[in-house]
């Protein structure tokens, strides 16, 4: 452990430091964005700029001690990204609030309710890596709110770094890191072929720090309040809180802020529990993993906890199916949506996902799927061959469905379905992807 840097001292009165959850979202019900005055009253003034390189190193050390990891799905240690970009000149910061995942709303809710916290984080990140500019790519549903918050700060002359907002492309693959850069550069929301790291050569060839907007919001609080405050909740290995989207058969679907490590069943009960007897959960997102809800109930919502049941945290989505829904029908709809969401750049993704989705649809409809071909295709398409991980994530989700719903598959092969719920589908996919 490094010695605690001076920056760890809280710079605001202790009664202003949020001692309990929520940290990121407004405390109590609110459907309006928190204005700058209310934001400053809650969190205090943003910390002084990190003018010297030594001070920047202290900030990075503090983030490392805090153990902050990315909240966009990959969970990469934030301090390492900061350090990689801080060592280079002409850096730029991008806050990624694209959130193309149809069932996930946590980034939209965060940007819509607490835009200034994300902007504080973007400014703090810019200070830390020595950037003078930060761009927030925000889902079109909330980009106006973020732009208004930026104007509010400009009028108050709050920030040295120049902030701007780019409405995101509303597409599934648009949130992938290189696709975000591609979108800002050329208005094309598709991933770029693997090349140099963004931290070396990103937006217009500049060293680029790209962080999910929730990660920036946490960063905004670590800089003034310190690592000890941050890690007062969460697990030792994975400190802090996280935003979770509860979707599907939950009494009160929505976004909740929980301590990392909270058992999955407890997280679901924040949303009033499942409506009706619980069936399967899709955890992590549409690239996530299907898991039995009874098996998952006691498992801590953390990377280490979920790993015990073969699941990843992903971007913090838990979608619940009731026991009387057909998991294969839901999987088929999501598979078709993901196949249709291919950027269309790589052959195995274009042809492979379409063919795989077709077989999953045959399986769901009881039209005699060729299971041997389906399994062979999953192996061929999901083996890391594309420019991005779209085929890999899609294959992972489908493979987990085939494993969890094996009894239901037997039923479907024999021509009947045990699901009595509406076939309309519980998990959201855009209407254009429906057959």
């Amino acid at each position, binding site marked *: 452990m490094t010695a605690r840097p001076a920056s760890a001292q809280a710079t605001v009165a202790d009664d202003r430091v949020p001692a309990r959850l929520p940290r990121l979202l407004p405390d109590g019900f609110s459907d309006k964005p928190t204005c700058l005055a209310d934001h400053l009253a809650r969190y205090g003034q943003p910390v002084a700029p990190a003018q010297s390189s030594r001070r920047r190193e202290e900030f990075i050390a503090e983030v490392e001690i805090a153990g902050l990891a990315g909240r966009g799905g990959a969970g990469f240690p934030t301090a390492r990204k900061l350090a990689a970009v801080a060592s280079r000149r002409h850096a730029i910061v991008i806050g990624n609030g694209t959130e193309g995942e149809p069932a996930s709303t946590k980034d939209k809710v965060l940007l819509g309710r607490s835009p200034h916290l994300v902007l504080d984080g973007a400014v703090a990140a810019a200070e830390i890596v020595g950037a003078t500019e930060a761009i927030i790519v925000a889902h079109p549903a909330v980009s106006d709110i973020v732009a208004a918050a930026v104007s509010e700060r400009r009028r108050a002359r709050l920030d040295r770094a120049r902030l701007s907002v780019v409405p995101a492309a509303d597409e599934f693959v648009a949130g992938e*890191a290189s696709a975000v850069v591609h979108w800002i550069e050329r208005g094309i929301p598709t991933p770029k*072929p693997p090349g140099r*790291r963004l931290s070396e050569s990103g937006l217009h060839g500049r060293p680029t720090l790209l962080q999910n907007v929730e990660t920036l919001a946490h960063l905004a609080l670590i800089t003034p309040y310190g690592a000890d405050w941050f890690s007062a909740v969460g697990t030792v290995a994975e400190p802090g809180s996280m935003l979770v989207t509860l979707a599907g058969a939950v009494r009160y679907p929505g976004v909740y802020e929980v301590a990392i490590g909270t058992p999955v069943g407890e997280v679901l009960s924040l949303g009033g529990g499942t409506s009706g007897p619980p069936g399967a959960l899709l955890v992590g997102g549409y690239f996530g993993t299907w898991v039995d809800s009874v098996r998952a109930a006691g498992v801590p919502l953390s990377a280490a906890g979920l790993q015990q049941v073969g699941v990843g945290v992903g971007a913090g989505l838990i979608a619940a199916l009731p026991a009387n829904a057909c998991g294969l029908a839901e999987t088929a709809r999501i598979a078709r949506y993901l196949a249709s969401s291919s950027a269309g750049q790589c*052959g*195995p*993704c274009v042809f492979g996902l379409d063919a795989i989705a077709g077989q999953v649809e045959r399986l769901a409809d009881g039209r005699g799927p060729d299971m041997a071909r389906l399994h*062979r295709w999953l192996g061929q398409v999901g083996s890391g*061959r594309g*420019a991005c991980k779209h085929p890999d994530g899609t294959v992972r989700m489908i493979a987990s469905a085939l494993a969890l719903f094996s009894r239901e598959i037997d039923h479907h092969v024999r021509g009947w379905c045990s699901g009595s719920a509406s076939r309309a589908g519980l998990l959201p996919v855009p209407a254009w992807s429906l057959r």
Partner: protein
Amino acid sequence: MKLSINMTACEGRGLCAEVLPELITLDDWGFPMLAGGVPPGLEGPAREAVRLCPRLALKLLAHTRSR
């Protein structure tokens, strides 16, 4: 040495798999799938496969590198 394919450039012409069947097979849609590293004895054919790719999609890398 390691082979790498830029799948966004590849159109599945399949020449690489003909020149280097030991390391490159085609999936059900005709797009190449790579075995891991290139053993020393196959470096010559690997270079030939790279040279023949009409889409310049195939590369031979000295070491592994990812974004």
